């Protein structure tokens, strides 16, 4: 592995990719995607599963006219065949055996809603395929198993959660971070919902459960990034080496490997679910859950890097204190530029390529991971830490010795 390659610099937290500086690009991309997602949800809506939309339930006797007992998979296959023949787009659930044994046992199978004539045709082909008495095969409308009340309560829960988590983040961080974190979460949810609407994946209870899992996960990722931002920017106004956006960018770079690791570590089991669920079983709970988690967590990782931190720096740049600080840093830098800052110019070529195109070339310069620059950076962070948390860093180690 090349020690100066991107992978290595990612590993040591010095990839120095200018992410925050290109925030206008990310915002534009996000805005376009949000518009597409919302438009799709509004116009196209969701493809709701039987559990939400209700459907038709078939009841089939478990014993054939010649006395044979049918198996669950036999019935499932026959019903799937009969129903897809009349309505190719219909969903069919697995068969369920009902009864306490004996002649009265039946199978019930649920499928998407069918018209009366479709159901009649399906019934006729079931009778001939399975060899069951025609008068005992019946169809019925079934309601949604997932009531509107469940959805309503879940949404109320979601809103209460957002309010509480906002309060928590305000206390733990500050209101701008809270707002940035929650808007990044909302973005995740809208994107994921948008993908579901656009692609037309079926929405089942498992999908909703997976969707709610994303809630915690997306915020979790953002909190980790913001924790680092908070650490890097503590007492930032005291010095004048970095603007807030630059310090944020540094934090994002320092945690980027963690974000990628986290993303991979969390997505690997989800990928396993998706692989088994979709690959071997075709459809069902595993696929539904795997899919929504894969989409949502993927967006979670991307948005915590590309959206949450840039949003935060944008909010922060409107804070008068930070505004004044940024102006001072830039002023000082332009002064220094005419003086002697030569070593800072010697950046590795790749880092330079990654940093060009940003609106503030100075940003990349100030965070250049030159070994020579390291002592400065180190001293800075140390001062910041001991300033922000008196003795906090050393106490535990002292206790252990």
């Amino acid at each position, binding site marked *: 592995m*090349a*020690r100066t390659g991107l992978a290595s610099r990612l*590993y*040591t937290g010095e990839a120095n990719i200018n992410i925050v500086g290109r925030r206008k690009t990310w915002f534009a991309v996000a805005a376009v995607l949000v518009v597409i997602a919302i438009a799709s949800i509004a116009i196209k809506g969701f493809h709701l599963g039987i559990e939400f939309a*209700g459907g038709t*339930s078939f009841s089939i006797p478990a014993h054939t006219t010649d006395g044979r007992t049918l198996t669950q998979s036999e019935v499932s296959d026959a019903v799937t065949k009969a129903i897809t023949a009349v309505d190719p787009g219909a969903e069919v*659930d697995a068969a*369920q*055996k*009902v*009864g*306490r044994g004996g002649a009265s046992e039946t199978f019930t199978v649920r499928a998407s809603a069918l018209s009366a004539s479709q159901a009649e045709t399906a019934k006729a082909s079931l009778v001939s395929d399975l060899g069951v008495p025609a008068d005992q095969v019946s169809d*019925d*409308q079934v*309601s949604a*198993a997932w*009531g*509107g*009340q*469940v959805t309503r*309560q*879940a949404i*109320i*829960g979601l809103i*209460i*959660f957002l309010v*509480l*988590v906002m309060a*928590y983040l305000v206390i*733990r961080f500050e209101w701008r971070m809270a707002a940035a974190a929650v808007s990044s979460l909302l973005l995740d949810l809208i994107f994921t919902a948008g993908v579901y609407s656009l692609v037309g994946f079926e929405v089942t*209870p498992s999908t*909703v459960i997976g969707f*709610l*899992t994303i809630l*915690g996960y997306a*915020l979790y990722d953002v*909190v980790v990034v913001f924790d680092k931002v908070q650490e890097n920017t503590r007492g930032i106004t005291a010095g004048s080496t970095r603007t807030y956006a630059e310090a944020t960018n540094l934090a994002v770079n320092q945690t980027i490997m*963690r974000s990628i*690791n986290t993303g991979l*570590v*969390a997505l*690997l*089991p989800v*990928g*396993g*679910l998706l*692989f*088994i669920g979709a690959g071997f079983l075709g459809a069902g*709970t*595993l696929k539904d*859950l*795997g899919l929504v*988690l894969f989409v949502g967590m993927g967006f979670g990782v991307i948005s915590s890097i590309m959206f949450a931190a840039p949003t935060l720096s944008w909010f922060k740049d409107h804070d008068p204190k930070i505004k004044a600080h940024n102006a001072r840093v830039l002023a000082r830098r332009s002064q220094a530029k005419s003086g002697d800052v030569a070593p800072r110019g010697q950046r590795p070529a790749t880092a330079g390529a990654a940093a060009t195109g940003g609106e503030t070339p100075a940003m990349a310069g100030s965070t250049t991971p030159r*070994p020579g620059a390291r002592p400065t950076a*180190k001293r800075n962070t140390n001062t910041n830490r001991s300033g922000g948390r008196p003795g906090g*860093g050393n106490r*535990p*180690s002292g*206790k*252990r010795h």
Partner: protein
Amino acid sequence: MHPGRQLAVLGLVFVVLYLLVFFAGGASGSVANRLHPKLGLDLVGGTQATYIASVQGGQVPSKESMEQARDIIENRVNALGVSEAEVVIQGDRNIVVSLAGKADDQLKDLAQAAQMRFRLVTGVTGDVSETALNPPSAAPTPSAGASAPAGAQPSTGASAPAANPGASSGGQGGGEVMQAPTPTPSASAPATPTPGVDQEVTAAQVQQKVGPAAWAAAQKLTGPVDLSTDPTAAKPFAPFAKLNGAEVNALTPAMQFNIPTVGCSQLDQRPNGAIDNVNSQVIACYSGAKIQLDKAPVVGNDISKASPQLDQQNGQWVVSLDFKSEGSTKWAALTRQAFNATQNDPCFVAAQSLSQGSEHCAVAVVLDKTVISAPVIQGVLTGTSQITGQFTAVSAKQLADQLNFGAIPLTFSSGPAQTVSATLGIQQLKAGLLAAAIGMALVAIYAFFYYRLLGTVIFMSLILSGLLTFGALVFLGRTVGFTLSLAGIAGFIVSLGVAADSFVIYFERLKDEIHEGRTPRSAVPRAWVRARRTIISANTITILAAVVLYIVSIGAVQGFAFALGLSTILDLVIVFLFRHPIMTMFANTKAFLSPRVSGLGRVLRRPPTEAKEA
């Protein structure tokens, strides 16, 4: 804390959890049986019951009322525990409820008809059936007879103004009550028949059973027999004590009220719907006394919404009622009648027996066969009204649920419970577990690749997490009915992956510290302090999500929230009691920094290599 001690605490957690798994919460059977988590409907099948709705007049029930009934039945099922029940409407009038495992008992009363009636209390008499049959040798005090059953009377969530046992001394209100229609044997209570449960019993059959003498004596009664003056006065009515619920129901309301040997236990056994009839007087039991209730001018259908509320002034739970516009007028009329009653009104006397010193009449809130409360009306009420009583948060919600349920004009009869097979079955369960294995293997491979030997720590903590989760699932499945569906299993697989992440946070911190030139010995505790802060903040959010969703939501979402909270807490346990002490111990070994062990040395070795390459 010393790392060894933390590991010891973890060991203790394990021992306690698995002791609970093997020996507590109704563990029984073989080792394998004790290790079975409660699996969901989709994996192992369960029990299914169908409830058939009927409306008076045999029409098809409206879609809205079926939906309402479905919601309420679902609420009732979910109140049974953290299991994922399935409630669907099938066809026009069937509600099908499925529960995991063997659940015949739980399914029995789910769709109990709930008919709400508001009736003026027009008479009160003690339930003296016990003393009536066995007159005590000593002179009986009437209150003894009345108070004994009072204690045994189960209160239905609302224990509102308790009846004053002393006030029920024989037939105080009886004289006036006799404005009740003259008993005619043909006036058998127009009960809604419950198919297959009770057979219709006619008054003639009862007359035959008790014998002509007792029947004649009962018909002559004009008020409750006063046993306080003559303890043996109940003698002629002894045969009535042998009647069952259906037979008692065949008696006229006045007879049910007046005959001393007809007691609350018999009245409570009357078939469902026995006192539903809006246009007749009925007899019910309340706080151990028999009460006579007037026709019901206001019914559940008049309520638009009932909700539990905390009274801000006195901190007590009340149930708030909103009436529909027509219902509101009727309710105002009923409360006006109760409020303006004069001393000569029978209801006035009855109210005084219920609660001494009351100046107005009481209105009984009757749900099915049960008087939920019988508050004395303190004003003419229009619009929103409140039912007060000794409610707790739970009983207030329960009553509100029942009232909402009572607002639905449907009666349900239930078919027999049946077993249903799993929809997904063992094959899918196996596939799920295979997916888990693949996922875990991928995480392990990645961890070993990226963190070298330290991947072992991740791997071991995942295994420990898995064991803790499994133990907790088995134990909770037995105690709170936590049911594991395939979605739940998938959720736990995912949460294990997320759990591995708290290690990533820790390790990346460690890397930062070493990168800044610290020795592993000092870097580990420093990284721990910082990572701990991050891990706790991040997990707090997840736990917050779990708690909010658990409290607010219902059904499958609630089950999910429970699983989420559980796995997050277990993650914290593993982080604090396993990963941290293990890492502390690792840091003290020489091999810790070697690239082969941790990959950590790389951050240190970089400058020389770079110099070489440059």
